[in-house]
């Protein structure tokens, strides 16, 4: 009997255990994540969610989104440098306009930018649905957050529209499993226009409390609208230069806040550029946190190896020569003469020899610098020359070829100059955002300027030029250009309309916005992207490469999407 009792007690315990919920409970406990329905507890949580797409947006300025705008154009290049950067020919295809939907970057840019759209949608859905009184937030502030998110989303859309043209318009994230069909270019144009126009009423204005350059403001939204209008002809076939001009004039006139053109040429890129009068919208960089324009996807890879010693900036290890300027001279040193007058970016700068930017970049200490380019020998403070990683002294030339250890002026036997025949000496480097010395207190502190007032001036100048007001255009351009040349320099336009041609205007876009991720768009607007020839690039057979194909991996999971024509 005793034995049976023991047995039944044991069995009872174990069976009883099964009935208790804990023995069959499969709820998950999260530790370092939060279940989304529990997320919003305080006002700060609302900000944290609101800022998610901004943080992502900063990341999207570099990497694929940057090189898709630069490498297929006539200023920057990523050649094969003695075995480095060949990457299966992927950058060759960008240069030659021979990419196909299977090239990874065609999918990457789509995904990266649409993730930003989805994150904005997600926060919009959350924040619109919140009872903000529970978070000690005013309805006005809620409206402003919503308007900023809509502007952020419009910024992504504008870039997707420019790269792919035929895109779906999606305004929800939660519960959706597939995107709708692609909108027509006109529908997308209308959508972006509507979003920006509706947002602007709720957005803050420069000078209001807490309104800083890292937030979308009325001026920022209107500048985006000016970009849409400036390129309208390309996007929809209908030109909107008049509307563009009107908006630009409003911004310049201070309707959306007081902005100005910096008098010091490097101020828009300097460590305190968030306070620069020229900055309309910029992502906040800091040395200790994010600083995406300073990373490998952008300007840290626009520098020669071992430049860290020359900069006396050692915090990032070694730089990498992924992007340099395309050459202005052939291997023998003769100036190229491309019939389309494109390319040769450094030569275009040298056209105005008194340009302050033409000085070799140098850190002067105490958070200051001079010059915007690296060329020739780079002499370090100890008198040594910067070395390549191939064992020869770096002598940077405005040429592409295999020079190795050849002294300046010496010509190698192989005169080939193609994407496949570059060494580390090939191509001038540019330094817009300063890499101050490791010991400087404001190193790597610049914000990344997405919209500068200079762009508004240039857009308005182009509208005036197209409407025949060349003198007005020259005057506007000079407003910005004045900072590059000595007072009274002949490099400044005469402001009578006698100097500015279409070609000069395009060159001037190139000089002002070199390496800022917009050259492809400008070439297309000027009709040069497919017809033009430049270094190691002949004219395209047709203009289907004016927009990118939807990448194979994107099409793979969204089979309702239609591939762009010609691919």
């Amino acid at each position, binding site marked *: 009997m005793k034995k049976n009792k023991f047995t039944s007690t044991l069995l009872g315990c174990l069976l009883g255990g099964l009935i208790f919920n804990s023995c069959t409970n499969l709820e998950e406990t999260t530790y370092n*994540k939060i279940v989304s329905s529990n997320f919003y507890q305080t006002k700060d949580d609302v900000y944290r969610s609101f800022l998610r797409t901004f943080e992502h947006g900063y990341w999207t300025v570099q990497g694929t989104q940057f090189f898709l705008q630069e490498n297929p154009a006539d200023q920057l290049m990523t050649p094969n440098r003695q075995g480095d950067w060949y990457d299966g020919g992927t950058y060759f295809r960008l240069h030659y306009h021979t990419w196909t939907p299977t090239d990874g970057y065609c999918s990457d840019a789509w995904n990266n930018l649409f993730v930003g759209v989805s994150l904005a949608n997600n926060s919009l859905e959350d924040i619109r649905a919140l009872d903000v009184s529970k978070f000690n937030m005013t309805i006005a502030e809620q409206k402003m957050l919503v308007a900023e998110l809509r502007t952020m989303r419009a910024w992504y859309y504008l870039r997707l529209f420019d790269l792919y043209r035929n895109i779906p318009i999606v305004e929800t994230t939660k519960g959706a499993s597939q995107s709708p069909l692609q909108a027509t270019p006109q529908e997308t144009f209308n959508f972006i226009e509507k979003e920006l126009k509706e947002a602007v009423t709720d957005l803050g204005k420069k000078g209001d409390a807490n309104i800083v350059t890292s937030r979308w403001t009325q001026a920022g939204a209107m500048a985006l609208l000016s970009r849409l209008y400036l390129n309208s002809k390309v996007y929809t076939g209908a030109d909107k230069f008049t509307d563009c001009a009107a908006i630009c004039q409003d911004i310049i006139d201070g309707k959306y806040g007081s902005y100005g053109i910096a008098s010091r040429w490097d101020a828009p890129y300097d460590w305190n550029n968030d306070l620069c009068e020229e900055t309309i919208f910029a992502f906040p960089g800091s040395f200790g946190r994010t600083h995406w324009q300073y990373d490998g996807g952008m300007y840290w890879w626009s520098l020669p190896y071992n430049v860290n010693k020359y900069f006396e900036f050692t915090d990032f290890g070694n730089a990498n020569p992924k992007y340099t300027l395309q050459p202005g001279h052939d291997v023998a040193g003769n100036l190229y003469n491309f019939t389309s007058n494109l390319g040769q970016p450094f030569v275009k700068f040298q056209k105005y020899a008194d340009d302050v930017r033409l000085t070799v970049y140098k850190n002067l200490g105490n958070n200051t610098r001079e010059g915007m380019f690296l060329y020739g020998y780079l002499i370090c403070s100890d008198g040594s020359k910067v070395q390549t990683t191939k064992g020869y002294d770096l002598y940077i030339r405005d040429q592409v070829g295999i020079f190795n250890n050849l002294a300046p002026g010496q010509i190698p036997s192989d005169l080939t100059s193609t994407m496949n025949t570059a060494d580390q000496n090939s191509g001038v480097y540019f330094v817009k955002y300063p890499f101050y010395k490791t010991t400087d207190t404001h190193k790597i502190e610049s914000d990344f300027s997405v919209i500068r007032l200079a762009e508004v001036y240039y857009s308005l100048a182009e509208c005036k030029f197209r409407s025949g007001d060349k003198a007005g255009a020259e005057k506007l351009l000079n407003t910005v250009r004045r900072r590059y040349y000595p007072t009274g320099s002949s490099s400044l336009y005469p402001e009578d309309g006698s100097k500015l041609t279409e070609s000069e205007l395009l060159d001037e876009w190139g000089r002002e916005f070199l390496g800022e991720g917009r050259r492809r768009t400008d070439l297309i607007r000027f009709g040069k992207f497919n017809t033009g020839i430049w270094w190691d690039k002949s004219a395209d057979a047709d203009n289907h490469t004016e927009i990118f194909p939807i990448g194979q991996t994107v099409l793979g999971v969204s089979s309702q999407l239609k591939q762009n024509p010609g691919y």
Partner: protein
Amino acid sequence: MKNVSVEKVLNAIEAKTTYSFLYSKQLIDVERKVTIQVKNRDFNSVLTELFNETNVIFTITGKQIVLSKKNDEKSEEQHSLIVNGKVTDDKGDPLIGVSVKVKGTTSVSITDVNGKFSVPALSVKSPILVFTYIGYDTQEVSFKGQTLRVALTEGTKSLDEVVVIGFGSVGKRELTSAVSHINSSDLLQSGNTNALMSIQGKVSGLSITNTGGSDPNSGPSIQLRGVSSRDAGSSPLIVIDGVSGGNIENLNSNDIASIDVLKDGAASAIYGTQGSAGVIVVTTKKGSSGAMATTYNGYTSVDFVNHEAKTLSAADFIKNNRGTNYGGNTDWLNAVTRDYAFTQSHAISVSGGSGNSNYRATVDYRKATGLDLRSDREEYGGRISLNHAPSNGLYKMSLNVAPRYIRKNNANYDVFTQALTLNPTYSIKDANNPNMYTTITGSDGQFNPVELLKLEKSGTEGKLLDWDGTFKLNITKDLSSQVTLSQSTQDYFDFWFRPSTMTSEIQSGYTGEASRAYNKWDHKSLEWLTNYSLNVNQHSMKAMVGYSYQYFSNEGMSADNKNFTSDAPTYNNLGDGLYQQVEGRNGMGSYKEDSKLIALFGRISYSYDDKYLATASLRHEGSTKFGTNNKWGNFPAVSVGWRVSKESFMKDLTWINDLKLRADYGVTGNQNFGNYLSLSTYGGYGYYLFNGKYYQVWGPANNTNTNLKWEKGKNMNVGLDFSVLNNKIEGSVNYYNRTQQDLLGWYNAPVPPNPQVQTYANVGSMRNTGFELDLNVKVINKKDFSYQIGLVGATNDNKFLSFSNNIFQGQNYVDMAGLPAPGSPGPAQRLQEGERIGNFYMWKFAGVDQNGSMLVYNKDNKVIQANAATNDDKRIVGNGLPKFTASMNHTFKYRKWDLGLYLRGVFGYDIFNVQEFYYGLQSTPAGSNAFASAYAKNAAIKGDKVLCDYFLEKGDYVKLDVVTLGYTVKSNSKYFSSVRIYATGKNLATITGFSGIDPQAYPVNGLTPGITGGKSYYPSTAQVLLGAQISF
């Protein structure tokens, strides 16, 4: 003891002593009631009293006491005939305790210590005697009037083996599924860290590979019957002593009694969501009754590099104008490599026990150095096993405890890559400043590998603890219930440090860098099993039901800092560094995750007359990881067996000793993936400035997938087990067909509307099929000389069936095996719907042009310049997944000598020679070293490397993998009872057409077989080992 049966008394003696009785109930009347004093008495006198005045005599041989009947004159007269004889084994040694029965009568006897017997044959005219003995074939002999001399042949030993299956064990005869059983005596002897390396190639269909075999801290990759998953784990579940999820790293191979590999779905379905990749069941050695026995096992081994890569010497480097001459002359491979890697291992086990309790305890110590200058591993551990059952057999308790401490210094595989690529005219030390190493930098992250190994510290300290305790209650003779509690826990405390004096630190401007990380894994479980068995006539039935609760957790933290005051405290004073004092940095992190698995399961086995066998099982299991729509799954299995050899129509086919046909089907699952992937969660990302303050931004951490569930495996297996020609040849053949569906993985998701580019989801299916052969041939089996051959072979055919389901559609391939800089050539393989995994997808080589630039075929098969080719011109040019693997084992025994020769081969696949691709051409980046082949075999190619099939080679190889020669001495001296001394050579010779390093360094498991993930590698070695096993 009062008025008890003789049997009770005998049982009591058995329980109190180490002796056991051998008798036949038909001969000895054990039901007879006696009253006898047994306490404090010598059992000999008890026995004498017990059988006084009976016709029973007892003989003591070793630990056995044989009871037999006296051959008294009287009884002889009563019967017409007494048959006398002697039974031996086939070597002539007497067999004790063989049952001898006169066919058709109740007359039975048992052989005595000399193998002799005499049995009354009553009035049978021509009696037939039946001899049966465990482990030997039953023999029938006609008596023809003289003293019989019978030699029994050893039976199909393996058929009597007990095979451990999920939650129980079964005799091999009754087994209805594909399970491979390996005894400790069959383990390969080599100085490996991981115990499972000792069955490499031994089990058909089980692929065990270690591409860094001579790195003392490198663990093997284990894969059964082809790759079983896309992204979730595809290593078999490890079960140690019935506890699932055991830690193989905490197992000293000296403690292994046997390993059973459950290969088919029916066997592994009882493990439900953990069974899809098969199950490896390890049984450790237990104590046995008797005096304490002590065994020492030890070895030392040395490893030498073989298959060394051939780079240009300094002289050839200069001659070929590869780069600047810095004046030195360094053989970098030699410089980063030790002359040999040295391992020593020692283990001592003691075991013993009484009838009620037994124990076994092992302690082991092992120290191994790697081939690179830094890596080593030192560990010590123990394993204690205690078992107790009272004499009434009401319950049984057992406890296993295994602690271990490990300290490792990590290898750095990149140092070998550096050794291949560095300019040989660099000196190791700076000529101008001999205290410093030469500063080496380069576009591809070059560094001074000798300096790194000498000055950088990188390693970990591990503490492992595995324990389990079981209480089993025998409710009735046929019904028992048991509860097992277990825990397997691992803590690793990593360290890393670079002093300020390293040239890389001087380059980067840091004055020292250091980090520490603490990571813990823990697995606790409770299992409750109830077993019932029933035997009625020829029907035999076993039933089992169980409940399982498993809790997994892992957590950890890490911290790093740079720029320290001094190098002296190394990684022991992280707070001293200035680096993390910069605003916006914090240099720390912590995490925790957990999950639960809960299951109810049951199994019924039935057999009729040992002839028709059937088993059915079901597991109902749920995991916290699954989405709300799919929390629980069912995993059924059935298997049937037919022992054809037991049928009467097979009687005349005497050359067939045993023949069994089997078929089974089972559904398995896989839940080996990350936590919280089904939930809608927000996670923290980077920082953004807002209202003058930095906020960490939070947003969707993943695409919500409430349908997330287990990966489902549908497994079919048919097999044949046979034993023929007096059991000289035995083996089995299996065919399997396994379809894995709802494959888990990160799948590209439509963006928009999703906030993340990939969703963790169940998409697509994959099929593996194959034949497996296991064969064991006793070529010669004499007393002084025996020779056995073991043969194992397996084919594997794989097809990725589909890449889509209702939700995820369209994308029918994924590019895999991306190759790194310089030149970042991109993916080398493509996983594609309708294709075998491991397809090399690249351009097809079409020769070179007059400049030596590579040409390829475009999609229209026209020859074009390689740098004009697009992705559309790529195609399938080969496959890296072996079609056939095989091994062959020859075992010779001659008197005191034993010799084992073990050959292993892998066939029918291609390898992409990554090193030849990166270093085998003259266009290898200037300043870098190249292989001699760049100026010989590949001299015609002057242009850049192109990702094409020029670098694809046949990977097939056959290895003389293990050779062991042993010598055993037995002794009656007081110092030891037996000593075996042995020498083993490992990886002694390879026959292959592959021109690169050892083909074994390329993986054959996983989703990208035939290619290494990057350029890094660890040299392959040949090993010589000397060992001793001493029993006291």
